[in-house]
């Protein structure tokens, strides 16, 4: 549920290895693909409560 717990070591690194970069880029791409698919399905920015 909390991604920060999965990436503690990456956050403190000055450089990423090839595999770390590939993994992170793939994860970003997966998220963007799923996002695009949801928007295509008609998901809207539903704001549940005004504050």
């Amino acid at each position, binding site marked *: 549920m909390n991604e920060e717990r999965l*990436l503690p070591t990456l956050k403190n690194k000055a450089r990423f290895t090839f595999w770390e970069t590939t993994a992170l*880029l793939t994860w970003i791409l997966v998220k963007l693909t799923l996002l695009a698919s949801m*928007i295509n399905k008609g*998901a809207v*920015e539903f704001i549940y409560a005004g*504050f």
Partner: protein
Amino acid sequence: MTLFINPIFWGIAISVYLLLLMRFPGRLIFRFGLFNLIALTILLGWKISLGALGFVLLTWSAINLITSLKNKSSSASRSLATLGFFLFLFFLFLLHKFNLANSEFSAQLKQTAPWLPAEILLPFFVTLSFSYIFVRCIDLAHSCIWKNAPLVDPISLMGYLVPFHMLVAGPVNIYDEHMRANERPSSAMTPVRVLLVINEITTGLFYKFVLAEGIRIYFYGLNGNISVTGWFDSLILVVYVFFDFAGYSRIARGLGLFYGIPTPVNFNAPFLATSVTDFWTRWHMSMGQFVRRNLFTPIQLQLVRRVGVKWAATASIVTMAISFSFVGLWHRMSWTWFLWGVAMGALMAVEKFVQTFLITKKWDRSGIAKIAIDSLGRVYVLLLIILSAYFVANEVFPI
């Protein structure tokens, strides 16, 4: 208002970053304040933007007046000016909250106070999510009036009070941190940092538009509204609100990291909390920190000074109840939310006693007992949050 799936928003967000990269004169917070004003004008229109600037100028003038009175004049006039400022701020907050709670409020206000431009003022507050501006104003006033922090110029203040990337759902940023924002947004942007920031933003988008919206669409349909009629609905609501709110917060945090503008972390695995007290240090953390900074600590100090250290525990219970009743009323101006806040405060006070008991028995240290207590604590917190959501849900999501 569509914001985070609006291509114009992302065009503006990137433009602000590129403009901050250019070495225009002025401190980072001034430049951010200026570009933020332009961003708000494009996103919300010039009327809202001008109104926001007017409000910021008014706040700036009031704080400036109060702090200058401190240096020159008697404490009575300063106290009077401070009281006037807080009453005015609270009046605007009440207008906004009554408007959110009652759809007829605008018409009622027109009848009772025709001199007040309700048809302009109320939608203006809704568009800007005034509840967040209200708490930022309190943080600003606390820092400048009581802690002697310097007041920044009105343009920089605009970037603190009405930041375009924290418009919808906060988080509650800290004035002291904003004021001291350093000059490293662009120069420290290494490829690794850029990748991590993009990861933060895309995770926020994933939380909000894939997980939260997925839950809503699955359970209530594409155009359906969330409604809570049973305990299961309440559980769904808690999970939905987590992904929705944490999603917004992470997008704002990612953009803040891009700009070098302090944007606090708002969530830290709240469902792993082992007590309600622990939960409120993990859920909407920026609000919890705001309450601790501006309400709990000052009230607790004053109370203990008056009643003595002997009564510190009682003072702590009273302070907790006051602080959390404020949090309740901040959500909605209603008895349900007020009682919700008082109950949360009371629960946390009880937890303090339980914790003391566990410490004296040394159960908080030993392996198996600790695992059992923590596991029970997690179940207790989850059940309690579901229960509390069940009682307040209908005020936020009317059936």
